[in-house]
């Protein structure tokens, strides 16, 4: 296997730019790291997960569905080059797999899938978290994984696409797998108390042990900013709207929506099945920890921690789960 330093990787990503529209973590002007093209900013691989919803590459906040001129409907064209996304964490890759399945099961969402198909996903793991913190290694659900050993990134190809990419990469030193083994052991030894907490919260919800009062209390602290939904890599809800783009020309867009809003389920008649703040707060947590378990066989939260970070009042899914478990066991 090969180990790369950042210079090698920058050159490699540049080379892969021939086949892909490459997005890497770049440093924005205030120090925020975000996905961008190599020429848009300084590459910043290390630093842990990206703040914004990482799956937005395939499912953007606002996206054109189609343009209709008269009776002629032109759907959004697929990207001219497939996307290559560098910088997901192992948790993010799990989220992406969850979203992939969601958008591909039963009806297939072509807007998502035309961006996702043939794309390449590169996970960063190992000691490249904030201040060198150890990030969990992926379960292999990505094309390529770059495992940072504190000095270099070990390249692990997990798919045919990943192997093809690895072949086109520049530089790198041939290295043994000892260091990888050590990192794998370290990754396995990472604490899993958060996962246990979440699983406990999930069982409480599935067993119907959380009373209405709990949700009233949490919802009193919710200011309906919707950030939990907008930052969540597995949230998929959207609304649709039309904008005129000239005489008899209309663009239809879709836009991230949030189940924390009163209008999310309100019907034109005024009836609202989620008409109280408590019901909406419950839905946010219950959907990920119970409904998804019933429907998909797994929780819809992979503990990326984004909703806890973006929530202005501290009621992200981890915080709420903690309170729930403290109160009800």
């Amino acid at each position: 296997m090969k180990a790369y330093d950042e210079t090698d990787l920058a050159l490699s990503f540049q080379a892969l730019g021939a086949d892909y529209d490459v997005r890497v973590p770049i440093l924005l002007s205030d120090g925020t790291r975000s996905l961008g093209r190599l020429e848009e900013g300084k590459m910043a691989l290390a630093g842990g997960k990206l703040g914004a919803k990482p799956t937005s590459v395939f499912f953007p906040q606002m996206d054109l569905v189609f343009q209709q001129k008269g009776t002629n409907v032109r759907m959004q064209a697929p990207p001219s080059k497939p996307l290559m996304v560098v910088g997901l964490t192992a948790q993010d890759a799990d989220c992406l797999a969850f979203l992939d399945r969601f958008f591909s099961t039963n009806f297939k969402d072509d807007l998502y899938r035309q961006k996702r198909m043939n794309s390449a996903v590169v996970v960063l793991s190992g000691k490249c978290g904030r201040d060198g913190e150890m990030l969990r290694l992926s379960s292999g659900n990505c094309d390529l994984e770059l495992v940072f050993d504190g000095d270099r990134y070990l390249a692990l190809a997990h798919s045919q696409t990943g192997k093809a990419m690895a072949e086109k990469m520049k530089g790198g030193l041939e290295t043994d797998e000892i260091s990888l083994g050590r990192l794998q052991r370290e990754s396995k030894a990472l604490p899993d108390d958060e996962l246990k907490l979440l699983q406990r919260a999930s069982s409480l919800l599935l067993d119907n042990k959380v009373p209405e009062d709990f949700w009233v209390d949490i919802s009193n602290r919710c200011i309906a900013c919707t950030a939990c939904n907008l930052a969540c890599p597995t949230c998929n809800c959207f609304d649709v709207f039309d904008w005129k783009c000239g005489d008899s020309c209309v663009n239809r867009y879709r836009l991230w929506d949030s189940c924390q809003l009163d209008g999310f389920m309100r019907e034109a008649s005024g009836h609202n099945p989620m008409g109280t703040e408590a019901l909406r707060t419950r839905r946010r947590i219950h959907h990920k920890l119970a409904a998804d378990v019933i429907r998909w066989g797994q929780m819809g939260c992979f503990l990326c921690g984004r909703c806890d970070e973006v929530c202005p009042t501290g009621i992200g899914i981890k915080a709420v789960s903690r309170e729930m478990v403290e109160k009800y066991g």
Partner: protein
Amino acid sequence: MKRVLTTCTYCGVGCGFYLVSNDEGQLVGVEASREHPVAQGQLCVKGWNAFQFVQHPDRLKQPLIRRNGQLSPAFWDESMKTIAGRLKEIQRKHGNDSIAFFASAKTSNEENYLMMKLARAVFKTNNVDHCARLCHASTVVGLAQMFGSGAMTNSISCVEQADCILVIGSNTTEQHPLIGSRIVKAVRKGAKLIVADNRKIRLARLAGLHIRHRNGTDVALLNSMMNVIIREGLENKEFIADRTEKYEEFRKVVEKYPPEKGASICGVTAEEIVQAARIYAQAKNAMIVYSMGITQHTHGVDNVRSCGNLAMLTGNYGRPGVGVNPLRGQNNVQGACDMGALPNVFSGYQAVTDAAIRQKFEKAWGVEGLPDTPGLAVTTALDAAAEGKLKALYIMGENPMMSDPDQNHVRKALENLEFLAVQDIFETPTTQLAHVVLPATSWAEKDGTFTSTERRVQRIRTAIEPVGESRPDWRILCDVAMLAGYGGMKYDSPKEILDEVASVTPSYGGITFERIGQFGLQWPCPNKEHAGTPILHVGKFTRGKGVFAAVDYRPSVELPDDEYPYVLSTGRIYFHYHTGTMTRRSKLLDREERFPFVEVNENDARRLKIRDRQWVCVSTRRGEVKAQARVADVVPPGVLFMPFHFEEGAANVLTINALDPEAKIPEFKVCAAAIRSTP
């Protein structure tokens, strides 16, 4: 993809975030700025959706000129010449003060500075004002007199350092969400929260004490609290002795307000007042947060003074977690005031009546004979127009038809003008009355600075190309000045304008684009080495000693009677912003509240046989509007609350044009109204 760091265009909290645009130059989203000191990677629902209205198809894309009664498309050249020509002509015919200029709390500091320069240097009138008149004029007058500075004394970060927070007349989680969220967090960490507001706002649910005093009785409530504090010896004697003056006069007035008297005026119990007084006075660090529930009264300045008194009485100034903190409503209402878009002061609150100051500006601007008497305010200018004394009005980014009291009066005033020019980003009820309408760019299409409620001067940056033929307000103003024959308003960029501001404005003396950088600078910042001032009045007040103000309770002008038995209070809601021009063109925000509504207490509704979400008719002596009833216990019996964002159910058809004698702010919070169901 392109990401540009900018400052939110909605409220005065001043959150930073990135505007995201795609390869086609279309705004497609917002990303948080994780390092921004105010936002810290968080935003409210308006912030997350702030990109939505910018490229809305309704944007004004070319100038319009009224021809044969109809507004029709025109060229820039012709439109600009018409404006300059008509203004000059009216100036010649009717004198300098026959023209007024409305600057805008939505536009940048640079643009507000230019508007006031245009009014004063080019047209030689002090008739320049903006909508701060309608929100915090009382604050600017009241706090400046008492302490020498009419702004938030502390910083937003101080909220989480307070041991007690008194929120009076502010629905903070809705109007200043990222300050409200800090209050929520402070309460979780153990801070005591007192909410004085007769609506059951979200914070009231978390408050240890919720006082639902009658609308407009704040002076009585605060005087009674202070009566208790003095009676129980909880005042900070050392602070009073060292740092204040006129205490005795003040004490004598407060003596007249024992809690029983306050209770009977306010419609609360004396125990509640005593409790509030003790909680506030006994806290190590107690902070007052207020907003328009305090200011929008005919006794708005007195309300502000009472807040100032309370904090002085207990020594809560000049350190983290304390102070008197008026939350400014609009993104740049602080800045528009700072820039002197006010009838009595130049930038940095330098009085027009001061000859030395006038001389300084005459020299800096290369003009002579700057006017020396304060001009007309937004409210009084419209009165003058209605009376035919004001002939022309130039409005930049304001919508008085929706924002000012008594819409029929405003319409009459605007229709009475010989000439009305309006520049805005969307068509509004105000542009519909204009002779010339100019398409301006939004905040996403230009550079400049906004000053937030915590006096933080921050950058906005160009994220996308201008929509249609729209131009930034600063360019338009420069061109008008040039066409009007003034050569002193030529700039290549807003950066140069801010440099000029710094050169004539002591509190902005050290503020430049470079120094603002990513996260801004808080004024006063007198020189290039100064790091800014997060907390005012440390050690001593800006004016030296703080002055206690002895104020008596005065009832509101129009109280309920048999014909109009309800108190109507107006305000804003979380999802909409001001006159709704932007939020109502944002999909999710508009979806949340699509109709004008009026909050009615459930007991009143039962008696009136009004169901939730039923259409009702609300009327006052000024007019009537239709709105959907929201039946709940948010307002107490006898009170109605209406947001003013909706053109089709404009609350300001109903409001009364009664002004505070000093601040000229209208009494938006109290008038007498009736309600009935519509067939």
